[in-house]
């Protein structure tokens, strides 16, 4: 019993180490790939595959987030007579928190699933070994373009989600609750700073990286058969989801401390 637990713990540790090495190698290879002309078409292809079809779902996700926030928050703010500040609440939440996180979860399902399934199938049909057998590094050829595409695209897609969230929230506020649009925008503009938007975009960058590395890792290490591929996809999604939430927390802490350090400076400068 104890031996079994110990063996499990050791196995987990080994897997964690393996994942760490894979992540490190992917990062280094991708950095090198940035300097290499031959990777550009591969990145471009991946961006096309990943990006184009994700735009509609991402925009729908964003719009619903904004609309729901408006409905939920209105009563509380109206109770205090602060309904004109509704925009502040919606837009800050969307841009800083819900936009990036929900967009990333959506992408973990959409892109992550596809990546794991594709690479997993290539793994079980020996196509990855075939890449190796021809003297090409599969991490460079398969992982780096996908990782770079995710890193570049997730922030962009998050901005789309943010935009739709802002629009959705505003529409519900104006049309359903009849809030004065000028007041709404004025309060929003004074509260939402570039800093808040940047936080969201930087978060998205990290989320994109996590989704790509986890999904590729699961694909590369997937077990044989259709069942193995399916299981790898599930594991990849769960792992991506948890890492998104964990990263979100970690980044929130980090950004807060950065803000605390620089906020006094900023108030002196301006």
């Amino acid at each position, binding site marked *: 019993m104890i031996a079994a637990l110990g063996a499990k713990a050791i196995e987990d540790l080994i897997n964690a180490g393996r994942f760490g090495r894979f992540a490190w190698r992917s990062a280094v290879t991708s950095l090198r790939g940035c300097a290499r002309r031959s990777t550009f078409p591969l990145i471009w292809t991946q961006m096309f595959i990943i990006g184009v079809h994700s735009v509609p779902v991402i925009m729908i996700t964003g719009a619903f987030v904004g609309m729901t926030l408006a409905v939920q928050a209105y009563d509380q703010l109206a109770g205090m007579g602060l309904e004109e500040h509704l925009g502040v609440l919606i837009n800050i939440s969307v841009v800083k928190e819900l936009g990036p996180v929900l967009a990333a979860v959506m992408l973990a399902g959409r892109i992550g699933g596809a990546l794991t399934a594709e690479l997993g199938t290539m793994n079980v049909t*020996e196509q990855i*070994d075939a890449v190796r057998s*021809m003297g090409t590094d599969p991490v460079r050829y398969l992982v780096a373009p996908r990782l770079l595409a995710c890193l570049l695209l997730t922030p962009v897609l998050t901005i789309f989600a943010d935009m739709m969230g802002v629009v959705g929230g505003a529409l519900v506020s104006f049309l359903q609750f009849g809030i004065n649009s000028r007041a709404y925008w004025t309060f929003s503009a004074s509260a939402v700073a570039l800093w808040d938007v940047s936080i969201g975009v930087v978060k998205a960058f990290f989320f994109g990286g996590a989704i790509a590395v986890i999904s590729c890792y699961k694909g590369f290490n997937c077990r044989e058969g259709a069942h193995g591929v399916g299981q790898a996809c599930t594991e990849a999604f769960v792992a991506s989801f948890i890492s998104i939430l964990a990263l979100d927390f970690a980044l929130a802490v980090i950004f807060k401390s950065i803000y605390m350090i620089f906020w006094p400076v900023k108030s002196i400068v301006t």
Partner: protein
Amino acid sequence: MEKTTDGNPEHRTTDHAEPIIEVRNLSKRFGRKLVLDNISLSVEKGKTTVIIGPSGCGKTVLIKHFIVLQRPTEGEVYFKGRRVDNLSERNLNEIRTQFGYLFQEGALFDSMTVAENIMFPIRQHVKIRNWREVDEVVKMKLAMVGLDGFQNYFPARLSGGQRKRAALARAIALNPEVLLYDEPTTGLDPIRSDIINELILKLKRELGVTTVVVTHDMKSAYKVANRIIMLHNGKIVADGNADHIRNHPHPVVQQFINGQVGEDDLAVLRMSGAVGSSQFLPRDFQ
């Protein structure tokens, strides 16, 4: 068949022939299962070595060690006198470009057309100046395996045998020094099999490539081999030229090359009893 004198069983490790691949005391385990058991052998440059053996005896695992797609549990692998089994993947890439490897299942990239598959190694390792030239090369390689005209097919739309041949065309795309074929003739009709045999001989004759063929097809083995090695239960049980194998005293070898069932296998069949006793028959189905 041309000269096979040097495969004489008594001096099979002839020291005048230069070994290009060498494995020493190679053992491979998957979990608890011992697949290769302390194998030592060397493949001579410019010769064709055929590896035969029953299904599941570890032939594929063995030749994967030659290009270090698998790493040994114990033992060493040498290529041109240099130890390769402990090299990093990055250093191996340069060595692997000197090999062509035909996977048992083909392992064609299914997101690419046949032509793109064959171009893949070329694009990875050659600076292409003239695309027309590349198309010519692709056409020629495909013609060699009888698939010219299938350039724009995706692998999923090819038959099993066609896929194998397309994979073969990809393996020879870079004119490698060493070719490793994993069952090149399985799943092909007899005439096509013989064309592949001729192709193997031609590549060896004209380009002087070293060839290792894994096969079950004894006709093909006799035709192309300078030397035949038989693997059984992870060990080498026979090693020599075609005549040596034909006249080998070991019953396992004789059974294999003549395609006879062993006594113990027959016993299992007899044990399984009369039809109807412990089996489902159509009349049982509602």
